[in-house]
């Protein structure tokens, strides 16, 4: 482990050197991004909810979206199909095999589900769902995992508060190593 520590020190030194350097030896061609362009640029959603758009959706609405647009691949109950490389969305705890994690029990934050569905799902026609549909189907995925009741819902303010079980057993190797110096 000491070797990694040494290496991180080097990176830290590199960082100092880099911040001492100036951007003078560049043509400095960056154009300021106009405010109106900046507004719609980021689709990133953070665990604390930054980046979530206003809105919300219910488990019941989400069931309709899910059955209409997702279950053909992810299965009626989110069981996925690893033979087709389709992830398991819903489980009932930790799996007995590391390849069989469900989204529900391996992702530490529910906000990431919103972000991913918004940008990448369904894979052949992404970025077509409305904000309301994304909230609703996110709620339904959480419901399939048993984290929300049938009459539950999520919104811009409540989605970051959903406690995912993996928060208790997910750690960052980077943070662990970084904290060593």
């Amino acid at each position, binding site marked *: 482990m000491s*070797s*990694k520590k040494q*290496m991180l020190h080097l*990176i830290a030194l*590199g*960082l100092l050197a*880099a*911040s001492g*350097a*100036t*951007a003078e*030896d*560049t*043509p*400095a*061609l*960056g*154009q*300021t*991004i106009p405010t109106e*362009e900046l507004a719609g*640029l*980021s689709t*990133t*959603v*953070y*665990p604390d909810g930054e*980046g979530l758009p206003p809105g919300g959706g219910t488990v019941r609405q989400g069931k309709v979206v899910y059955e209409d647009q997702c279950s*053909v*691949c992810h299965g009626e109950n989110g069981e996925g199909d690893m033979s*087709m*490389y*389709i*992830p398991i969305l819903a489980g009932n705890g930790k799996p007995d*095999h*590391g*390849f*069989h*994690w469900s*989204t529900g029990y*391996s*992702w*530490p*934050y529910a*906000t*990431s589900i919103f*972000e*991913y569905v918004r*940008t*990448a799902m369904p*894979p052949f026609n*992404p970025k077509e769902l409305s904000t309301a549909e994304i909230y609703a189907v996110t709620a339904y995925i959480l419901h399939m995992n048993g984290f929300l009741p049938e009459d539950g819902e999520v919104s811009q303010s409540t989605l970051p508060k959903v406690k995912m079980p993996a928060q208790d*057993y*997910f*750690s*960052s*190797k*980077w*943070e662990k190593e*970084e904290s060593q110096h």
Partner: protein
Amino acid sequence: MTKTTGFVGRRDFLRAGATFLTASSAALPAALAATRASAAPEFPDNMLYPGVEDEAYGRPSPHEAEVARKIFPQNEKSTLTASFTPLHNQKGIITPSGLHFGAHHSGVPDIDPETHELFIHGMTDRPLKFTTRDLMRYPLSGGINFLECGGNSAPQGYYPEAQPMPLQYLHGLVSGSEWIGVPVKLLLQEAGLNPKAKWVIAEGADAGSLARSIPLQKLMDDAIIALYQNGERLRPAQGYPMRLFLPGWEGNTSIKWLRRLEVTDRPAYTREESRHYSETLADGSIEGFSMYMGVKSVITHPSAGQVLPEKGYYQVNGLAWSGFGKISRIEVSDDGGKNWIPADIEGPVLSKSLTRFTLPWRWDGNPVRLQSRAFDEWDNVQPTHETWKSRYFEGSRNHYNAIQTWFIDAQGAISNVF
């Protein structure tokens, strides 16, 4: 000392070489006599007729058509694909760009460099955008580095039994190239970093907007926005017109078709870093953000999928690499790890790069277990399969870097074993 391995020691080898010479010079007069016996010399057609004109963009010989990647295709429900580098055909530390591995979650987009822009925003003094043309005018730097998918060698980690797969499928998600581009720190400095900035969300312009949270430290260190690979502009499958390139880090973090760098103070926990590129540890917990690719090596010849036609001399060939820095030593064993012989390192030893090793070897025709293990300049050493497995939960498949064992049976057939 009794000879316990088939590796030809320096002195032994010279002697063996001399034997070869004697044998071949003894054979020479007969061969010459045979040539002289025929009347007029016969020339092959290629020495009688001028060849075709060269092509504007050259291609490999049609006789080398089998040297190709193996493609794990999309299916009607998934856009995920992987293309595996034919490492068994590669000699040297550079993988031809057309043979470089790929792992694409949403296909390979076709991007017009004239309209593509790179946005840098978030916790910066100024949100800035750059065109591809702009970036071409910046100071360029980079180097020869390996790139390895976090899921390379996954079948070794995933399956309880060693799979009957060739080298290409087992370890072909690693390649080596010269990557040249704009140091990311120059652009971040131009935008002006907020002192609280610690992470950057890097996002691609593919259909799935693939994104990863990258520690700012790496971006201020040796990260580049790669524009060139092996002397030419990036291939579409490698991120044309620009990709992030993070030497030594898991491939997925080197975001292709780079579109956005959002400067922030915390990670976003995107899909890729939540489950897909995280590991399940032995205790059942999940570890994410495992950025470095560990020290690793593999013998590419002889390797699974090949057959040794007869006993006798073979040059063992292989590649070693470490995400932490330079390879310091490579050792080879032909007795399942009892004796380890230092291999010869051939060519340049570069930081975070494929490093080529060789060793002269005589196969005596008996079944053997052939292995290589690499060490890096930080004294990291490749673990055995058993040690690697003991760290992870059954079925955890990413970041497999254990010693590969090739079993050569009495017929010379080579297979993957644990």
